[in-house]
């Protein structure tokens, strides 16, 4: 049952719970506690994918989120996910995965042939190739798209649920290694609210992978004791399987929790993933460090692995990785991997170390085990392709960094490498903190902080275990104290380990070549993008000096691992190529997300019907039952038209329009914006925000108003009614209501605090029903009590209170369609009742409900503009032919000064006109351009454009509204509307009021 390369004992596996899974169509087995990567290695699967550019065979290099090669397509449609990192996938029963980026199979890949022509794919290949000739771009794209690509996106709807949660805490701790756990327990003991997150399934960080004793007992015993204490603290939240992926402003940290990804069976309740939006007063980053690979010829062969990962696979996953290994390192830490290899029964053929006579504690223990140490040596080549057969060594001079002497071979099938450690500074950098190059440690470490954050442990360049724990304890105490918990003192480090001496690391960004560094080599810096060291030398030779430019030119670090392994080596190589200090080169920008995040998690529950609020009027269900087609107006659903039987839209709209013109139609206008204006200075306020005068308006009267921005451009319009001396009701457009409210409040609060005026949005409180047409008075008289409806008693532009259908109502005699009209407002709770009463009372008149389309057509016949459809924020009242609404007597109103600006008084501004086509049956498409001539060379000067266009059932010909340069002085002139290069429509400029220009019909 167990894999052939599984050790008999050890590891953090549940050997009582075996699992079965499929990789590239073959069935394998593993245990609970495995990752896909460890289970594959335990089954002897080394070849997991092909590289992106040259399609070279690749194997597993790492054991965590740094893994560049082992990207798999996980699961099947609809749950398939591309580019999942095998080292981060917890194994579950029935898991199914396959390699990405290889065809026809991982073992035989046709495109690996491109490896033979790799000198034809130099850095900047894409830029150079695509310069010229342009007609070949399509061909290049076809070829490259077929040979590139990482997996496939699912093409079915995601069946899983995703969640988001907002969380606030005093101290957020990222990472649960020695430093993070120490910080968490120290902060937790003060009573502070603590959240501890870790991307792994188990807490412990590097302790999980190591075989180290803490205070004479295994490190995991220490972890267990800390966790036991943390679990008892009521203010502490522990989040395993949770990646802090982004550090944003004001200590806002995004955390992705993988809730059920590790399980094949869903409980039906839990979401698949959950994003925690954490706002922390203090953040402690204990994110650890990532081992740096060494760069040498054929360093990408399957079987070349990070030394720390070799240890992880042995200690945590009980995998026997080979039969004979060599360890290539420039520092002491990898010597512990030698001991791990020996304990797992792997022969170690030698340690290759560029330093002369390494003499630290660990090298001396290794020596005592009889393992040969080849000092002052480097690996110059790896023999074997899909499996390693041997490595080739040469001597190196420590000071001049030159290789010399004769090479010789060491037989092996596994190479563990360590080029030092890169602190995981991603989150610190994202928070705005600076980085500093530490020469003695040969790595970038956190510099100056920008937010309330501290880095501790190896992410801060602290690699000694005792110091990591010491610093973690202090950081936890300090963070808690900063948020008002504890007394600022800290406990003693009782987990302390034995002191070890270490020799300094020998910085080595690549193994030196014997010849020209720009000659193409197979010394890979970035495995995922196939960037080799020679690519960087070539970029430098071609004049690239900034690491940001070199990154884009060579694609270094542009894979979805964002160069976690390769970037720092690349920066070191560039420094060498340019003869500069690495600290002068700096790093590329660390951007969220630390590891890839699914779109499902980002969207969370905000999809489908929950994506945006839907606003429905009180009468919505009646419209639905009547079969109305709806239109979205902002968040509102408005009836668009009411088809009868099998009517098409045009037929329905024509019928609805004629009903309004000939008898009576009814419109649900509840979405109209309504602002209640109250206070002793209400009239002064209206004087300032509208262009016309409000002083002489009597209680019971209404007036149309035009609202301008300070730039003099029309912003909104509507009718305002005077209900009392200090009480008005303002109507705004349906879609502009929110903006107008904010705009009015801005002026009241910031410029005119002296005005005693209160604004209240009452849009939702009132249902608004408009009855329009010559029979509307007859209809209303059947259901209205207490109001004299005669034209003298209740004239056009008046407002009255009364009872309609038994309900208290405000009735406004206003019209947007140019007929005798009444707009009845009642408490929204009675909206449906009133509507049904109106429909009932209108039976004899053939009352017809009509929608927004008919309403738009009817108002276009009257030449009324719709702000936001006909206007676009660049039209003055004068452009609309509405100079009549600008009161000369007022000293000031918002936008007034702008109306006399040089640009506002140009005579060739685009002005509102009507257009009547020469052929009455032709309807001009909205948005078309108006031109002056039907012939002439392209480009033709544009005179303006069409904003509204309809076939008018009342008039029997088409009508259009548009804006034309100097249009007001072009009445009767013939213009052309361009449809395409060969077709124009001829039309005459007319007055925009097509129907009842004297306005007699609304005033009867």
């Amino acid at each position, binding site marked *: 049952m167990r894999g052939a390369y599984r050790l008999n004992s050890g590891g953090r596996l549940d050997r009582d719970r075996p699992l079965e899974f499929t990789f590239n169509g073959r069935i394998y087995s593993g245990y609970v506690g495995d990752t896909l990567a460890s289970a594959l290695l335990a089954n002897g699967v080394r070849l997991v994918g092909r590289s992106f550019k040259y399609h070279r065979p690749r194997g597993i290099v790492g054991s965590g989120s740094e893994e560049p090669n082992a990207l798999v397509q996980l699961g099947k449609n609809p749950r398939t996910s591309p580019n999942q990192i095998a080292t981060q996938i917890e194994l579950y029963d029935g898991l199914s995965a396959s390699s990405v980026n290889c065809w026809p199979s991982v073992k035989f890949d046709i495109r690996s042939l491109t490896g033979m022509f790799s000198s034809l794919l130099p850095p900047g290949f894409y830029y150079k190739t695509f310069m010229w000739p342009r007609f070949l771009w399509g061909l290049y794209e076809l070829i490259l798209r077929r040979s590139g690509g990482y997996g496939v996106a699912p093409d079915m709807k995601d069946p899983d649920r995703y969640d988001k949660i907002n969380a606030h805490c005093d101290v957020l701790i990222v990472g649960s290694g020695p430093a993070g756990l120490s910080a968490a327990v120290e902060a937790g003991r003060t009573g502070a609210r603590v959240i501890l997150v870790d991307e792994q399934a188990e807490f412990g960080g590097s302790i999980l992978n190591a075989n180290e004793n803490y205070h004479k007992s295994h490190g995991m015993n220490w972890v267990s004791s800390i966790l036991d204490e943390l679990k008892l603290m009521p203010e502490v939240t522990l989040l395993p399987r949770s990646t802090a992926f982004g550090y944003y*402003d004001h200590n806002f940290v995004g955390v992705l929790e993988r809730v059920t990804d590790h399980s094949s069976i869903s409980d039906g309740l839990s979401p698949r993933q959950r994003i925690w939006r954490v*706002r922390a007063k203090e953040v402690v980053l204990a994110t650890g460090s990532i081992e740096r690979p060494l760069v040498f010829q054929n360093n990408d062969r399957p079987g070349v692995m990070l030394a720390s990962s070799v240890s992880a696979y042995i200690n945590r996953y009980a995998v026997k990785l080979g039969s004979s290994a060599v360890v290539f390192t420039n520092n002491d830490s990898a010597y512990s991997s030698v001991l791990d290899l020996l304990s797992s029964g792997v022969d170690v053929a030698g340690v290759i170390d560029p330093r002369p006579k390494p003499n630290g504690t660990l090298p001396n223990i290794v020596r005592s085990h009889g393992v040969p140490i080849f000092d002052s040596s480097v690996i110059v080549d790896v023999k074997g392709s899909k499996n390693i057969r041997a490595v080739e060594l040469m001597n190196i001079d420590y000071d001049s960094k030159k290789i010399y002497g004769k090479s010789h071979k060491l037989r092996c099938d596994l190479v563990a490498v360590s080029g030092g450690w890169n602190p995981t500074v991603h989150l610190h950098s994202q928070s*705005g903190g600076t980085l500093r190059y530490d020469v003695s440690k040969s790595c970038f470490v956190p510099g100056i902080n920008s937010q309330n954050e501290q880095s501790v442990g190896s992410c801060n360049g602290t690699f000694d275990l005792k110091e990591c724990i010491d610093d973690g304890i202090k950081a936890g105490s300090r963070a808690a104290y900063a948020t008002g918990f504890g007394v600022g003192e800290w406990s003693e480090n009782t987990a302390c380990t034995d002191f070890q001496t270490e020799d300094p690391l020998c910085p080595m960004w690549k193994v030196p070549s014997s010849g020209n560094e720009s000659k193409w080599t197979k010394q890979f810096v970035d495995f995922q993008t196939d960037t080799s060291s020679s690519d960087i030398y070539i970029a430098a030779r071609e004049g690239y000096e900034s690491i940001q430019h070199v990154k884009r030119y060579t694609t270094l670090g542009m894979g979805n691992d964002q160069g976690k392994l390769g970037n720092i080596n690349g920066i070191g190589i560039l420094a060498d190529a340019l003869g500069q200090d690495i600290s002068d080169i700096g790093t590329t920008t660390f951007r969220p997300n630390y590891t890839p995040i699914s779109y499902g998690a980002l969207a969370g529950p905000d999809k489908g019907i929950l994506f945006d609020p839907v606003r429905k009027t009180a009468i919505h269900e009646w419209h639905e039952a009547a079969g109305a087609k709806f239109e979205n107006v902002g968040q509102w659903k408005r009836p668009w038209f009411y088809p009868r039987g099998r009517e098409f839209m045009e037929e329905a709209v024509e019928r609805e329009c004629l009903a309004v013109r000939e008898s009576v139609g009814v419109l649900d206008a509840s979405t109209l914006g309504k602002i209640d204006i109250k206070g002793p200075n209400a009239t002064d306020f209206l004087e300032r925000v509208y262009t016309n005068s409000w002083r002489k308006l009597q209680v019971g009267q209404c007036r149309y108003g035009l609202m301008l921005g300070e730039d003099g451009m029309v912003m909104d319009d509507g009718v305002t009614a005077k209900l009392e001396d200090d009480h008005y009701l303002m109507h705004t457009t349906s879609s502009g209501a929110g903006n107008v409210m904010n705009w009015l409040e801005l002026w009241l609060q910031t410029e005119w605090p002296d005005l005693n005026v209160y604004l209240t949005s009452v849009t939702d409180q009132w249902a608004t029903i408009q009855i329009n047409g010559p029979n509307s008075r007859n209809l209303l008289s059947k259901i209205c009590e207490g109001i004299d409806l005669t034209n003298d008693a209740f004239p056009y532009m008046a407002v009255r209170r009364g009872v309609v259908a038994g309900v208290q109502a405000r009735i406004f005699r206003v019209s947007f369609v140019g007929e005798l009209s009444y707009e009845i407002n009642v408490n929204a709770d009675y909206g449906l009742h009133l509507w049904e009463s109106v429909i009932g009372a209108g039976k004899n008149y053939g009352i017809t409900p009509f929608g927004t389309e008919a309403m738009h057509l009817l108002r276009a016949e009257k030449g009324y503009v719709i702000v936001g459809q006909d206007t676009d924020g660049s039209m003055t009242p004068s452009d609309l032919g509405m100079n009549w609404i600008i009161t000369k007597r007022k000293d000031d109103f918002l936008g007034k*000064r*702008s109306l006399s*600006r040089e640009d506002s008084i140009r005579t060739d501004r685009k002005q509102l006109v009507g257009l009547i086509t020469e052929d009455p049956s032709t309807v001009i498409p909205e948005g078309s351009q108006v031109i002056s001539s039907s012939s002439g060379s392209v480009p033709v000067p544009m005179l303006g454009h069409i904003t509204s266009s309809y076939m008018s059932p009342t008039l029997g010909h088409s009508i259009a509204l548009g804006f034309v340069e100097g249009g007001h002085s072009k009445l009767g002139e013939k213009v052309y509307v361009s449809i395409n290069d060969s077709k124009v429509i001829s039309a005459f400029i007319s007055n925009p009021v097509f129907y009842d220009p004297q306005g007699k019909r609304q005033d009867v």
Partner: protein
Amino acid sequence: MLMIDCPWCGNRDESEFMYGGEGNIVRPQDPESISDDSWSDYLFMRKNTKGLYMEQWLHSYGCRRWFLAERETVSYEILNTHKIGEINPESKS
């Protein structure tokens, strides 16, 4: 996402607020008496400072009050927030 200290409600997430551009710009007392240039300066010209910037924000999903915030445009730190009228505005003309 910023954490903004509404002077009326206290600390709230940025998603509750609406940005209103540069704050404390005073409308000219007598617009008709000033030149097109001065009016255009009031209308269109904003400092867009690199550093400390006085902004106006609306707590739109809260108390619906406009207020002023001093924000550092490089670090995004908000140093202070003020109710309208608490600090003297600078006059543009």
